[in-house]
């Protein structure tokens, strides 16, 4: 039994890392613009699908991954420029609907380009399982954990140590004040979308060798990432990471101990409970409503 628990934990942390990366992307955009980008899951899918396509075109895996990440960042930039910027000042409900529209649109584009089939990426470094204390771990899981840790550290350092990161944070605190001290808010918004899209794409590329990818793969991943961001308290990047890991572990335990068919229901039931009892998330700031 302890071996089994360890196994569930290992699987959970791997999946949770992906949720954490997607959640981080949500938090980034939300911080900069107060918009929840429902197309975040589509960035994950785009990253994986583009890498598959480039790989099939003969590019080596590493190069394909880098190009796919850059292309997805470009898509994020375009999304901000073409769909979010023209609707500036729209209500929360309107922006939710616009980004849902963008998500469906991107899914439609990928469907047209690469069809409905399932695709898989080769693991980065072989697929000989690693044994530890009775549990097994795929080498790809180590890649997921390592790169996620690295990216989270980079995002943290970006916000805490660079001028650009601080400028971005300033926009989230008070857009007008940021503008007044000479920060170009529009550029910052585009940057946030591009970064968030790149993070999503990397998450997609990391997880594609473990789970299959298809034009629909972003839907659930996006929703789980959104859940991670909400559980962690929206707009709190490290909260989103914690939320993602928590969600991943819980889901994996639920799938292993209760029923694998109900694992999504268990995850969302947890999210609902968090929202009912801690409506601003586990690590969110308690704020009063401004009238």
């Amino acid at each position, binding site marked *: 039994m302890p071996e089994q628990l360890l196994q569930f934990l290992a699987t959970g942390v791997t999946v949770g890392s992906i949720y954490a990366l997607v959640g981080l992307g949500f938090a980034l955009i*939300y911080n900069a613009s107060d918009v*929840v980008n429902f197309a975040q899951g589509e960035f994950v899918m785009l990253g994986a699908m583009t890498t598959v396509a480039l790989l099939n075109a003969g590019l080596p895996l590493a190069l394909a991954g880098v190009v796919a990440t850059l292309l997805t960042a470009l898509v994020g930039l375009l999304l901000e420029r073409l*769909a979010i910027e*023209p*609707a500036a000042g*729209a209500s*929360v*409900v*309107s922006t*939710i*609907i*616009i980004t*849902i*529209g*963008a*998500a*469906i*649109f*991107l*899914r*439609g*584009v990928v*469907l*047209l380009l690469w069809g409905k089939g399932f695709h898989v990426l080769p693991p980065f470094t072989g697929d000989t399982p690693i044994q530890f204390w009775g549990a097994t771990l795929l080498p790809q899981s180590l890649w997921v954990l390592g790169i996620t840790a690295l990216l989270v550290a980079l995002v943290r350092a970006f916000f805490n140590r660079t001028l650009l990161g601080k400028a971005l944070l300033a926009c989230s605190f008070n857009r007008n004040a940021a503008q007044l001290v000479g920060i170009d808010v529009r550029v910052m918004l585009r940057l946030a979308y591009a970064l968030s899209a790149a993070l999503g794409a990397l998450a997609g590329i990391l997880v594609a060798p473990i789970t299959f990818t298809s034009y629909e793969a972003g*839907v659930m991943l996006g*929703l789980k990432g*959104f*859940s991670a961001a*909400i559980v962690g308290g*929206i707009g709190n990047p490290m909260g989103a990471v914690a939320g993602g890991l928590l969600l991943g572990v819980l889901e994996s335990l639920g799938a292993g101990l209760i*029923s694998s*068919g*109900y694992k*999504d*229901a268990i995850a*969302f*039931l947890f*999210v*609902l409970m968090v*929202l*009912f009892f801690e*409506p*601003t998330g586990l690590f969110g700031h308690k704020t009063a*409503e401004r*009238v």
Partner: protein
Amino acid sequence: MRLAGLSTFATGIALLPVLFPDNYFVTVVGVSAGLHIILVVGLNLLMGYAGQISLGHAAFFGMGAYASAILTTRYAWPSLLAMAAGLLVAGLIAWLLARPILRLRGHYLAMATLGFGIIVHVVMVQATDWTGGPDGMAGIPSLNLLGWEVDSDQRWYGVVAVAALLAIWLSLNIVDSRIGRALRAVRGSEFAARMMGIDTTRAKTQVFVVSALFAAFAGSLFAHQQAFVSPDSFSLLVSVELVIMVVLGGMASTFGAACGAIALTLLNEGLVVFEDYEMLIHGALLMVVMIFLPQGLFVGLSQGGRRLWTLLASTAKP
């Protein structure tokens, strides 16, 4: 004015089968459009008037459908009784859920309704003993209205048309009632509404339950009409599609919502040939309408028309 709109609408619906008897577009697509009208008019009460988003409305649609399917096939209940049971279950769940869920706002509310919809969908897929799992349930008997069997396409058109008109009429009355005014106040500013002495929690709970009842009613009709239900008809995509219809028609307009339902049903029917483009067009439509005509296609167009009309009228006068 209200009755004028309703009677125009009713005349149009009544004339269609006379003008085009046995037309596939009238009987089959018409029934589907009618069911969508009931769903969307109900959702519009919640989204358009009360300003609360729901990304899980297909769950209530499914509850009505599965209640009818399970009770009539497994327990041989009469169809009307099964429908009533479905309404009761959906209404009760909506009532229980309303208080905690409608306390949330904006993105949190979107997440919660979405999660609820997914949980219900997972149950439909997994509870195979009850729901037949992903394969669904077949052999649902047709609707029996006190001895009158609804068993032909024409009869279904009639029943759904009456039901849709009833839904529109109910919605128009709710909007114009005290509750309707309270809801509009909630959308404007919940805080201000509370200051005016409106019990906002109660108003929101009521509208949530009403829109769930509309959806369950449509679901029950859907199950009997199709004679088959499967979880696919109640997925997240369906919830999103209902939101598209509300947005397309124009939030906070009952006729707009009804037009949105008809328009998207027809569009989907037209796009069957271009199945692969359906998503692309849906997505683009949603974005373009929301960015350029945030009041919806029909409200936006009718306002534009009215402005043009006054412009013409003022230039015509010397």
